[in-house]
């Protein structure tokens, strides 16, 4: 029975313990649905707390077992090489878990303003997070695609979650069409690579070309294959959709505006980070023999992305569109890091630091947005922020710190992220990209500062006429959980800007 032996051998590499965080998240998602059936309707308010506390539990578990996964070298690859566990993968797990917890916190606030089913939201967020965690550790195109589709399908639902709002539906439709297109491109690229690398007449061909290691060996042996080049460009295009890089950024403003604010945050931070961890895996591990092709493509993309994002954000009045387009420019800065990572390993740590700083700052800003937003989630105007610092000093301070960090102002974490990327770019000799980045940073000051200006300097003086109502929506009072989360985000942003300590040393030493 040779087949049974093969299966046994394969099964022996199935170390389920290696993916316990993903398994726990998936189970937690099911528990939430079960609770909804079991608990009487009055007690449904408990369920989001269960989701958040459960995830914090997983996070603590993960933190205590951060190094166990790759203590033994034979544990680095599990499930017949489908997954590759590394320090980077562990870091991204923590990252996605943090993002997921914060999305749930924001979700409880945003959902309270709508008449919508609650529990499914948390369920989907958990499933999507688990898929992202797998994505960041994938070592095989099949797993990559399955995980990516899980993420994308989850987002189709989440984006149009506020289904009574036409803008949310429109956003969902746009995301569906664009997402399908990007999946198509990605799949087409994968198929081309599979076909070429599986061709027995070529040197280095493999029986299992979906595997990253095998594909890498093949690409090394065929450094100038035309079909492989097209495949690589198509795969990169598919990933570029996820990170919102030019010319695949076109869906961003509408989708970000229409999606519920917590989902926008999820898209802006976690989905983008997933795209970048994928991009790093591909460019650092798999496509290295084709650096001559990928580097210029990514470099041009980076420059165009920075300029487009910043210029387009300049004229926005809707804060969700503004932060979406500013997020495009952040993707551009990160792409500079990806380009630099080819020759400077320092850039890898820089990218992860940047992503982490971006997570802290973005969720601080989105947290404030969720509080300020009114019943119509898509309508969040800069004017709604006037006088915020006076009426809600706490929200004002958190907003200022978050926006300052996004703008890259010292002593906040976002500045250190930009600095590390710039140093890496300098060392890699990317002078033109640096100039573009500087121009971008100076432009970005205008709109970030404009937002701060709206919240701090402009006072709501227009005396209300009789019968006229204040245009600004009522600001939700800050609850304990959200307050603690926002305060911690702001504090972490400040501390990480001044003192990186062991975290900085560890990050800068990260390698693939």
């Amino acid at each position, binding site marked *: 029975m040779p087949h049974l032996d093969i299966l046994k051998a394969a099964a022996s590499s199935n170390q389920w313990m290696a993916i316990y965080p993903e398994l726990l998240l998936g189970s937690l998602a099911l528990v939430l649905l079960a609770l909804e059936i079991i608990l009487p309707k009055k007690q449904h308010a408990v369920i989001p707390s269960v989701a958040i506390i459960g995830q914090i539990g997983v996070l603590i578990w993960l933190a205590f077992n951060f190094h166990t996964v790759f203590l033994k070298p034979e544990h680095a690859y599990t499930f017949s090489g489908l997954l590759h566990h590394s320090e980077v993968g562990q870091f991204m797990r923590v990252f996605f878990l943090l993002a997921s917890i914060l999305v749930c916190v924001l979700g409880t606030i945003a959902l309270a303003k709508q008449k919508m089913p609650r529990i499914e939201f948390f369920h989907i967020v958990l499933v999507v997070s688990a898929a992202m965690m797998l994505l960041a550790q994938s070592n095989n195109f099949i797993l990559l695609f399955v995980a990516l589709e899980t993420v994308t399908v989850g987002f189709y639902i989440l984006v149009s979650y506020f289904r009574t709002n036409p803008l949310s539906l429109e956003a969902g439709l746009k995301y569906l069409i664009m997402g399908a297109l990007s999946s198509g491109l990605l799949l087409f690229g994968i198929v081309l690579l599979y076909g070429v690398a599986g061709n027995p007449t070529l040197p280095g061909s493999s029986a299992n070309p979906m595997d990253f290691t095998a594909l890498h060996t093949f690409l090394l042996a065929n450094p100038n294959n035309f079909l492989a080049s097209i495949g690589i460009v198509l795969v990169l295009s598919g990933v570029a959709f996820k990170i919102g890089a030019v010319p695949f950024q076109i869906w961003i403003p509408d989708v970000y505006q229409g999606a519920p604010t917590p989902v926008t945050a999820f898209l802006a931070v976690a989905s983008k980070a997933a795209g970048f961890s994928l991009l790093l895996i591909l460019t650092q591990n798999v496509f290295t023999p084709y650096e001559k092709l990928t580097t210029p493509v990514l470099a041009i993309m980076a420059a165009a992305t920075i300029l487009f994002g910043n210029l387009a954000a300049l004229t926005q009045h809707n804060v969700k569109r503004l932060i979406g387009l500013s997020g495009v420019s952040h993707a551009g800065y990160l792409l500079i890091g990806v380009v630099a990572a080819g020759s400077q390993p320092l850039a890898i740590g820089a990218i992860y630091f940047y992503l982490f700083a971006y997570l802290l700052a973005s969720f601080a800003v989105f947290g404030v947005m969720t509080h300020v937003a009114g019943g119509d989630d898509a309508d969040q105007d800069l004017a709604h922020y006037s006088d915020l610092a006076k009426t809600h000093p706490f929200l004002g301070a958190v907003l200022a710190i978050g926006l300052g960090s996004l703008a890259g102002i010292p002593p906040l974490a976002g500045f250190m992220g930009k*600095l590390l990327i710039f140093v890496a770019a*300098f060392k890699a000799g990317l002078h033109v990209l640096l100039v573009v980045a500087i121009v971008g940073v100076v432009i970005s000051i205008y709109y970030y500062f404009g937002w701060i200006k709206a919240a701090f300097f402009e006072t709501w003086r227009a005396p209300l006429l009789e019968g006229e109502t204040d245009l600004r929506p009522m600001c939700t009072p800050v609850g304990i959980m959200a307050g603690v989360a926002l305060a911690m985000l702001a504090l972490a942003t400040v501390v990480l800007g001044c*003192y990186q300590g062991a975290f900085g040393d560890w990050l800068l030493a990260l390698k693939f």
Partner: protein
Amino acid sequence: MFTHLLLFSIVAPLAAAAVISAGLPVRIAKVAAALGFALPALIALHAWYHFAESAQDHGYAFLAKYDTGLQSLGIKLTLGLNGIALPLFVLAGLVGLAAGLYAIQSNAERLKTYLVLLLVMQGGLMGVFASVDIFFFYFFHELALIPTFIMVGIWGGRDRSYAAMKMTIYLTLGAMLSLIGLIAIYYKSHVDSFDLITLREELLANGLKAGVQNNIFGLLMFGFGILVSLWPFHTWAPLGYGAAPSSAAMLHAGVLKKFGLYGLIQIALPLLPLGAAHWAWTLAVLAVVGNIMVIGFITIAQRDLKQLVGYSSVMHMGYAFLGIATFTAAGIGGVVIMMVAHGFSVALLFLLSTSIYHRTQTFDMTEMGGLAQKTPVLAAFFVTATMASIGLPGFANFWGELTIFVAAWKFSPLLTVLAISGVIISAVYGLRSAARVFFGQPTEAFAKVSAEKPPVDLVWSEKFPALILIVALLFIGFWPKSISTPLNSALGVIYPAPTAQLPADNAK
């Protein structure tokens, strides 16, 4: 305790800011703020007094290093004072104290937030001049800069929103250019360190290629130049200072603006001598023709008292740039003395302008007149400040300008003559403004205001901060040796006797 002296001077105001923002009642918050401003000033005076006798390493006293987690990049919080940094550190401490005390006594709206921002700024200022690591040098500058924008935006006067935005964009551009310049020095030197001492030793031994030096110096010159309001990138300054609340204007014009000059003197010139020589003429011409002549005449035409002070500070920066362009130990030494003197005198002028505003309810000088009859002490103080600003012997400014002119004569007699004629320009606008505000007959508008609310003379909450500044000006004016001795020793270390062109094969 004394090994962490400099760190303490940075942390004290920041800690006071943190304590106040935790929600103290206003009365206690004022005490905390006073402590937060007084401690750095005391530490600065202590450092000044004990500088000569303390142990020095490469000319730096009170050296201390702290690892913040980016050591693998060569970034380390290194604090220390050399003879160039010391006078500016003292300036930061004293002007901070004066501005802080003035703010504590002011009736600003949302006083606690105002004090928190000022304290953060003070922490940054102390850090700028105490940093030996050029990364943290930049870092602390930004830390001090950001509160300025917010203060202008919230507590500013006319056009505050526009002024805050303009300042932010200009100064961010300047800061970004200088950051890139600093990273370029770090990278091109290949020592993997942002430590100024290491960089200096390496670049003295193996200088960079002339082309590289020219590019980097250009970046730094314009980057720092924007921050110091080098003509024609000065337009943010009068507008910003005109709108800024007085304490913020005192700290920014008095101390923070010196960051750019300090960066040129401490970093750019010694590390990039060939670049400095390449750009010297451009800098000197922009400084003399632009800052001194053009801005000088614009200053004469001002009607708004605060704008006038703002423009005059832009103009005085021209002397500093001229001194830097001479690239001699004497010229640089003159610039340092002038920076300190100008810091005290411009802060004093901003303080007194606000005091005048409180009595006349306007900054427009055509609506004032005859104030001296009602407020003789204020008039005496203002005339003193004007004299100092013009550069009368007996005030610190005199020594700075004199040394710069002496050094500049060798560089270019023509430019020196033009620069000296600038002194006449500043005498014209200085004396005219004093005459318009304090002497002659009161105008109708002012007579009306003073009839409604008779102006009182300078009160102690204004007098005390002003006295700190005046005493400092006179002390250095009569005893310049107190800062020139450490300065000389530092300049001797950093600017060794002029070296010949580096041989090409030795250059990187």
